[in-house]
C-alpha cells in the first residue's frame, strides 16, 4: 500500500502521462519509505494506476478492492501499463527501471573477484549530469500543471541517487554476504546543480523542453570501479649510507642517484598491502650525505587503493623484518598502521621539536684540546641564518633565528674534532659550521677564529615521541 494522499492524485497522473517511470513518480511525491522502491517496478506501476483510477472513497473499500485481485478493468489497465513501463523514463533514463535490479547488483559485486578485504562498504554512484536537467524539467512542468496549493516542493523530492542506493545497497550487501553499507555524501555535479538552483522557471523553459523529451534509449551503464580508502603506515627509519637521498633524485628525466629511502621502504610495504602507490612524508629530512642514527626519524606512508588493509601485529613485524633484510642502507622500527589524523602529530615534530647531531669538524689553524672546551659551556646560542645559498634557488630569501641549545666537543687531532649539537628544529648545521659566506651569524669560524668546515654529519636523534614505540 503506497503512502500516497488524495492530493497526490493529479501529480501522479501528470507524471505518468509525461513519461515518468513508477519509481520516479514515487520520488516526485516525496515518498520516503525505502521499501516502496524495492518492490518490482511493475507492481509499483500497477499500484499507481490503481490509485489514480479510483474515485475518492473511504480508505477501507479502496483497500478491499486492491487486495481482491485484478478485475476486468484492472486487466485492461494492466495491458496499458505494460506498454508504459517498457518506455524509458524521461527523468532517470532507465536507471531506476532496469539498471537497479539483482543483475546489476551482481555486476557491482565484481569487487569479489579483486579479492579486497573489508568490513564496510560505501556505494558511490556517478550519474549523467543531464539527469539534473530532466529533473528540473519535470518539476517545472508539475508546478505549472497543478494548482499552487499542491505544488511540488523541490526540497522534499527524493533524488535519483538516493532512490538508486536504497534499492541497490541492500542487493549488493546481500550478494557480498551481509557487509554493512555505510552512507556518506559523494560528489555531486556541482556546476549543474548550482546553475539549476539559480535559474528562474521562465528562463529555464526558454532553454529546455518541459516535460523533457522522450529518450529513445535508456542509460548505458559504464564500468564499475573499486577504490579502497587509503591505509596509513608509520614508523621510524635509520639511514646508514652517505649516498642515499630521501626521495628519488631525478633531473631532466635522468636519475642522478640510485634508489632512495622512500623507495627502499615502500617496495615491501606496497607488496604486502597490494597497493597501487604511496605518498611518503616524514618529520623533516636529512641531506643525501647525512646519516640518521639513534631511534631514527618518524615517517608515515599513505598507501593508495590497498587491496589488503589489515595486517596483524605479527605480520607487521614480519614486514618490518623484510624491509630490514632487503638493504643495509636503511632500517625501520616501530612499523604500525595509524590513522590519517596521526599524520599531523608527525608534522608537529618538523617545526617544534629539537634534534641532536654529531659533526666531524676540520679547522684550518691547528688546535689543542684546551682550545675547544669553551664550546661545551655555550648554552642557547641564537643564530641569525640567512637562507643558505645551497637551497636559495627553491626557498624564499629570509633570515631565520634558530637556537643551538647545547654543544659538546671531542678532540681528535690538531685539525679535527667531533662536535655534538642539540638544536631547534630547522637549524642548518652545515651553515653554522662553515658560515655560508658569513651569512649565518654567529658561526663556528667566528667562535674558533679560524676557517672551519664540516666533513661529516650524523643525525643522532629526532626528538619526537611519535609513533608509539613497538617493543622488539
Amino acid at each position, binding site marked *: 500500500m503506497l503512502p500516497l494522499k488524495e492530493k497526490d492524485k493529479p501529480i501522479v497522473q501528470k507524471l505518468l502521462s509525461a513519461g515518468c517511470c513508477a519509481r520516479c513518480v514515487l520520488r516526485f511525491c516525496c515518498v520516503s519509505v525505502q521499501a516502496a522502491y524495492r518492490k518490482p517496478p511493475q507492481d509499483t506501476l500497477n499500484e499507481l494506476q490503481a490509485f489514480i483510477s479510483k474515485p475518492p472513497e473511504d480508505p477501507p473499500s479502496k483497500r478491499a478492492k486492491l487486495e481482491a485481485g485484478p478485475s476486468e478493468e484492472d486487466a485492461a489497465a494492466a495491458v496499458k501499463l505494460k506498454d508504459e513501463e517498457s518506455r524509458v523514463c524521461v527523468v532517470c533514463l532507465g536507471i531506476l527501471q532496469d539498471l537497479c535490479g539483482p543483475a546489476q547488483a551482481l555486476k557491482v559485486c565484481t569487487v569479489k573477484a579483486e579479492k579486497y578485504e573489508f568490513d564496510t562498504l560505501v556505494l558511490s554512484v556517478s550519474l549523467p549530469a543531464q539527469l539534473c536537467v530532466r529533473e528540473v524539467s519535470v518539476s517545472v512542468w508539475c508546478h505549472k500543471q497543478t494548482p499552487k496549493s499542491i505544488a511540488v516542493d523541490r526540497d522534499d523530492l527524493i533524488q535519483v541517487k538516493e532512490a538508486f542506493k536504497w534499492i541497490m545497497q541492500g542487493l549488493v550487501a546481500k550478494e557480498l554476504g551481509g557487509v554493512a553499507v555505510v552512507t556518506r555524501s559523494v560528489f555531486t555535479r556541482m556546476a549543474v546543480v548550482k546553475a539549476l538552483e539559480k535559474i528562474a522557471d521562465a528562463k529555464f523553459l526558454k532553454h529546455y523542453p518541459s516535460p523533457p523529451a522522450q529518450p529513445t534509449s535508456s542509460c548505458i551503464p559504464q564500468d564499475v570501479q573499486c577504490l579502497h580508502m587509503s591505509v596509513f603506515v608509520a614508523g621510524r627509519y635509520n639511514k646508514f649510507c652517505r649516498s642515499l637521498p630521501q626521495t628519488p633524485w631525478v633531473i631532466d628525466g635522468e636519475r642522478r642517484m640510485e634508489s632512495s629511502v622512500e623507495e627502499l621502504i615502500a617496495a615491501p610495504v606496497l607488496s604486502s598491502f597490494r597497493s597501487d602507490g604511496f605518498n611518503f612524508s616524514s618529520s623533516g629530512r636529512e641531506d643525501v650525505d647525512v646519516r640518521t642514527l639513534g631511534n631514527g626519524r618518524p615517517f608515515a606512508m599513505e598507501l593508495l587503493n590497498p587491496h589488503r588493509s589489515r595486517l596483524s601485529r605479527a605480520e607487521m613485524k614480519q614486514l618490518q623484518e623484510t624491509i630490514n633484510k632487503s638493504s643495509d642502507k636503511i632500517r625501520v622500527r616501530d612499523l604500525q598502521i595509524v590513522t590519517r589524523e596521526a599524520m599531523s602529530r608527525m608534522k608537529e615534530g618538523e617545526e617544534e621539536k629539537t634534534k641532536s647531531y654529531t659533526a*666531524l669538524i*676540520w679547522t*684550518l689553524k691547528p688546535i689543542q684540546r684546551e682550545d675547544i672546551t669553551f664550546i661545551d659551556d655555550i648554552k642557547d646560542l641564537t643564530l641569525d641564518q640567512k637562507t643558505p*645559498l645551497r637551497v*636559495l634557488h627553491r626557498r*624564499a630569501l629570509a633570515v631565520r633565528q634558530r637556537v643551538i641549545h647545547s654543544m659538546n666537543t671531542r678532540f681528535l687531532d690538531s685539525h679535527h674534532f667531533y662536535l655534538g649539537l642539540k638544536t631547534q628544529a630547522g637549524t642548518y648545521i652545515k651553515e653554522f659550521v662553515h658560515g655560508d*659566506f*658569513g651569512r649565518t651569524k654567529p658561526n663556528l669560524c667566528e667562535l674558533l677564529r679560524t676557517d672551519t668546515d664540516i666533513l*661529516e654529519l650524523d643525525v643522532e636523534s629526532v626528538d619526537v615521541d611519535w609513533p608509539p614505540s613497538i617493543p622488539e
Partner: protein
Amino acid sequence: MDCVEQKDTEANAPSVVDRYYTRWYRADLKGKTCEDHCILQHSNRICVITLAHTHPILQDGRIIKSINYQISNGCSRLNNKVSGKSKRGGQFLTDFAPLCRITCTDETEYTIYSCIRGRLLEVNENILETPNLLLEKPSTEGYIAVILPKFEESKSITENLLSREEFESIVAKRTVDQSQPT
C-alpha cells in the same frame, strides 16, 4: 664513522667553495687591466660575484676607504628586495651592470660589475661595516653579490666567461708580458 678519508692535517682539505662551486672568470672588465672578477657558480645555478685574486684592490696593500652601493641617482643596490620563492622584485642585471663602487685610501676607484645576466638577490652588507673582509676573504665572507640567472639561461651564461684554466693562462701571459723588456 664510515668513509673517513685520511685528511691531511695541513690545510689541504677541499673547501666549501671547491666542493660545491665552479669558478668562472671575467678578465679586464670594461677594458681595465687586471680588474678581474670571479663568479662562483653553485650546482643549483645561483652565482656569487667576488673579486678575483688578481684584482688591483687586493694588491699593493691597499686599504678600502668606502664602498658605495648607490650606483646612480635613482638606484641603490641596497634597496633591492626580493620576495617569495620566485624572488620577485629583484633588480634585473645585465653583464655590465654596476654593483658597487669601491674607493681606496690612495684615491683609486673601482667599479665592480655583475658579469652575468640575472636577478639580483642580495648584496653583501657585511663589507659595509667591515671592509677588511673584502681584503682578507675575497672568495667567501668578502663576496660582493648573489645573483640568480634565469632558469633557461643557467647554462648559457658561462659561454661568455673564462674557465679557471683559461683565466690562469691569461694571468700567466700578463706576467710574461710584464717581464718583457719594453
